[in-house]
């Protein structure tokens, strides 16, 4: 296991406490983003991206010209008013960014589709799973199978292109929530396994130095193996057809299946179609000898 990337605030002294790491810095406002990126570069680390974790709707997020070459993950609670956003769409396309919107708001699903159709890369945040799974299925089908040109929409594109029936697919890294790919630090350098655990101050180490070899660190190792507990407990998720791409991520929020199984089964089917389409692309031609 290679060293996970670091997600941390753009605290100068924190960034200087380690070097040669790949870092995603999290800021609350777009105007902090350019400075945050600069601090990463100054610290001798590599910038993975700047996460703009905004409490404002997308239409109110203004990205400056100085961010054009900075990889951005823009997280907004909603996409706001289209008439406001429309003026910025042309410019948004110029940025190296992915827009994250919660998938549990129907308007956001429409927004994700529109943004994608306009060539802007997006990601639906599935959160706790309390969402309209049918609407999400429609969006997913659009994202993966629609032939009209559109930008990628995660997690669907990621899953469809990487689904392998003979192995599990972990896609938490799309949300920076996979300790194999990301560890989260607070301003004091304390380490958490996910953004939610960071917020709840559930730390696994007081600093990165304690981690040593990540694959051998008990908390990381246990988290990476935590899926096995579903089988020990004979949890219903362990017998679900969608397990290989869900891995029980809604087991706590949705103790009784409320649509997630159907959605993930559908997603597997769509992934099959997507992969078959790639293989059989020649069929799009009229005929071949």
């Amino acid at each position, binding site marked *: 296991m290679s060293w996970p990337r670091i997600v941390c605030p753009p605290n100068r002294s924190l960034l200087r406490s380690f070097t040669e790491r790949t870092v995603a810095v999290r800021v609350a406002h777009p105007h902090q983003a350019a400075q945050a990126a600069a601090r990463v570069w100054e610290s001798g680390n590599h910038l993975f991206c700047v996460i703009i974790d905004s409490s404002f709707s997308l239409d109110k997020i203004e990205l400056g010209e100085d961010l054009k070459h900075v990889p951005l993950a823009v997280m907004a609670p909603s996409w706001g008013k289209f008439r406001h956003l429309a003026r910025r769409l042309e410019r948004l396309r110029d940025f190296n960014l992915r827009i994250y919107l919660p998938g549990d708001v129907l308007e956001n699903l429409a927004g994700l589709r529109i943004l994608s159709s306009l060539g802007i890369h997006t990601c639906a945040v599935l959160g706790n799973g309390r969402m309209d799974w049918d609407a999400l299925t429609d969006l997913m089908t659009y994202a993966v199978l629609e032939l009209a040109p559109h930008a990628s929409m995660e997690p669907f594109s990621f899953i469809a292109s990487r689904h392998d*029936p*003979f*192995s*599990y697919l972990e896609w938490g890294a799309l949300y920076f929530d996979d300790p194999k790919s990301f560890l989260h630090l607070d301003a004091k350098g304390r380490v958490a396994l996910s953004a939610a655990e960071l917020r709840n101050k559930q730390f696994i180490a007081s600093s990165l130095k304690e981690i040593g070899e990540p694959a051998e660190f008990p908390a990381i190792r246990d988290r990476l*193996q935590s899926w*096995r507990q579903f*089988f*020990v407990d*004979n949890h219903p998720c*362990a*017998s*679900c*057809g969608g*397990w*290989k791409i869900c891995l029980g991520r809604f087991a706590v929020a949705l103790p009784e299946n409320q649509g997630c199984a159907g959605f993930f089964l559908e997603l597997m089917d769509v992934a*099959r179609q997507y992969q078959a389409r790639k293989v*059989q692309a*020649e*069929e799009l*031609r*009229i*005929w*071949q*000898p």
Partner: protein
Amino acid sequence: MATVIFKPTEACNARCIYCDVVQKKPRAPVTMPLETLELFFSRINEFLREKPGEEMEVIWHGGEPLLLGPDYFYQAFHFQEKHCAQTGSRIRHSIQSNLTLFSREFTDVMKKLGITSFGTSYDPIENLRGLGRKRDSQAYNRRFMEGIRLVEEEGFGWGIIYVVTKLSLAKPLEIFRFLSNFSPSGAFMFNPVLLYGRELEHLKVTPEEYADFLGAIFPVWWRHRNEFPQVEPFSSLVGNLLEDSRSLMCCDSGACAHHHINLLADGSMSQCGRSADWGLLDYGSIFDKSFSEVLADPQRDVLLERNTILPETKCKGCRFWDICHGGCPLDAWSASRSFLHKSEWCYAKKGFIEKYFEPLVNPCAIAGEGWMAKEDSPPPSAQPRKKGRTRKSKPAPEKEESGDLPWINPIGGLGDTLMISGVLKQVVEKDPTRRFNLVARTKYRPMLEGHPAIAHIGHPPPGAGFISTNYWDHMDYRSPGRRAFQILARIFGLKPVEERLYVPWELEDDPAFLELFPWKSRNVLICQSSDSPRKQMGIEKWEALVEMLAGDQVGVFQAGKMQDRYIRGAYSLLGLTTPRQLINLVRHFDAVVTSDNFIMHAAHLCGTPAVVLWGPTDHRVYGYSGQIHLQSQADCEYPGGCLGPENGHLYQIICPQGPAHCLNTLPLATIYRAVMGLLEKP
């Protein structure tokens, strides 16, 4: 291969409810002493030296073999090194363990013994498997999962045996999903619980129940079988019935008498675990007898007699004899106290196949052409057709109703479609009531629309039964020279047939084409095109050929796709014709020069003489008699051609030899002479 089921200990840390080992009074010694272990390897060496062509499989069994500890296995390895210096390479070890005791200390010695995978077993249902006298299934599950994790981390594979009990019957799909989720790239196997003489009514299953359990899972497995690991008995049945890749377990092989020896900790030998438990087929002790003597023991004769007696008695006329052989002799003995009966689990296999397997996998069987109409099947007298019986379980569809008809999912190139069309024509000629649905796919529809065998073209409903035309995945395809057309015919239940192609429309001329073309007195159609770059001869060579033909006043026309490279000097029809138009046109030419492609098939259909240029594919598989086949010899790592079985992934990849690839080695003069030979024929 001789097989020793080696039970060096009958001790076990678990108390699985259905296990015989923990129920019976332990024999002494519980664990095989090292002296006996050493003798065991000495006996193996003796056997392998006597039989230089033989191998021996040692299946570590128990009890729980990991209870022996790593040192015991090191001792075994040491004895093997000591006694089998010359024969050790012919010893194969495997192991069956519950894995709850696995630790990294076992890794080295397991690898030294050549063990790469563990056979294990598991049941998510509580209180069936468990540790200690209290049968603690929670603790068992935790330790089992830990064992699996370690085994994976240490680079071993593993597979699961799942024992089907009455408690499983209510949730077959749940269990199947659990196992396939848990073991996405491993393998698992369903076995019915065997409770000989034990009062565990709440666990017992009947053969019918077991067949229904499998039947509930089978459609799900079958539909996405390429996405599941090896699942038994399904994978073997498909191999045995559809692909001729005969793979029979000991209980079905009818041959266990030749190979199997059960060895217990005290050195006593028997046929297998159950015969030892029941005091049957006692072959004596390892202290007194060599393995050769044990394998020649006259008590084994009765097991072999089954193979001659059962086909004339209990199994007479059974079309599944070849894959069953009456089942396990010990099962038979358990029910009837005689080995000369079939297994009481007969229905589990037969019922499953007839009720669930055949209707889904081989609708041809229902329509009257089962796989038992194969060339290698027993004569009809010994094998009454089950037509009526299978129809009873699922009525044959009415002629014009498309609802229950099997769906043909056509794949491959247009040449393949012409072959499918030809096969289907012969299917309906043989049985005018047979019809199929065709999955609507842009490429194939125009070729098969209106075909007398096709009732409907559309989109299959969920649960539809499919016939796939991917003959290249068929086992026969691996035999050199097995013809694609005949494999397709066999997929549709036909015996070897005449290779006639067919199109479901009247061949008509398009006046526009005929009038506009600059016909000469002799005209040749050439086609360089193929989906595979490996099947395309170099353009320069084609141009040289065209120049030579033009010098002889031969009109040369080039057919192909819009994006094909134009061959200078030819009259280009690239992208101007539909496949139907092209077939109509082919018959107007005096000869066709082509690679292995659609035009080659079309020429055969129209009776137009053809020179076919073969490189990475084999003319014996695809070419037609009457055509001139110029086969180049591959000078590369694929002497039989790189586009044979198992090499599908190379199809669209350019040959690394570049312009020197095999098809380009065909001498131009040879091609030219062959074409002129055709043109000069009266």
